[in-house]
């Protein structure tokens, strides 16, 4: 699974993307956040406030309960501020 980070999520985690092998029991975004949060303090800092985060799966916005598979491209980011 490819996971991409943007804005202050990227800054706090310290990398802009990574490839992971999705554990079998991690089948939605929320579980993925919990799983990633154990990878270090930067992750924890970036991902702890789940309510403020936004997610996409394969370039479409999804909510935190969205199911995920190992071949998905996931992105995790703060609310967008374009325009």
């Amino acid at each position, binding site marked *: 699974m490819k996971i*991409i980070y*943007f*804005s*202050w999520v990227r800054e706090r985690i310290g990398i802009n993307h990574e490839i992971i092998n999705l554990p079998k029991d991690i089948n939605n975004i929320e579980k993925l956040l919990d799983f990633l949060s154990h990878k270090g303090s930067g992750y924890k800092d970036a991902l702890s406030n789940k309510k403020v985060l936004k997610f*996409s799966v394969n*370039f*479409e*916005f999804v909510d935190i309960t969205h199911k995920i598979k190992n071949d998905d491209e996931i*992105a995790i*980011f*703060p*609310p*967008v*501020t*374009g*325009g």
Partner: protein
Amino acid sequence: MVVKVQKEDFDIADELKLLNLKKNNSGGCVIFIGKVREKNNDLIIKSLEIEHYPIMTEKQLETIELEALNKWPINSSLIIHRYGKLFPGDNIVLVMTSSAHRKTSFKATEFIVEKLKTKATFWKLEETLNKKYWLKPEKN
């Protein structure tokens, strides 16, 4: 229907030509230009860095444009959004729609601009003289 996500500046006159207003019988064209401001409240802005999510951004902009086209009889439309490091006075975004009647075009252009704010995957890092901070989304 045109969508461009680019580092380079845009030229409004050139983009207007591409819309080809004469041929498609457009009586009205409404254009929005968003620019980097000089100040945010009292803080002088040094730069504005715009990050985006390639592929997803273009897809989202196309979806927004299609939504507008489905809602109103628009003859042509264009969205250009820049990314990268910009400075006060620089262009950020250009939205144009044209239609036979002006009211349609006002509604459609404003709709696209509002949708951009919540659906297009851009993030802005503003730098003032003393600090850098990620802009927060607007409260509506």
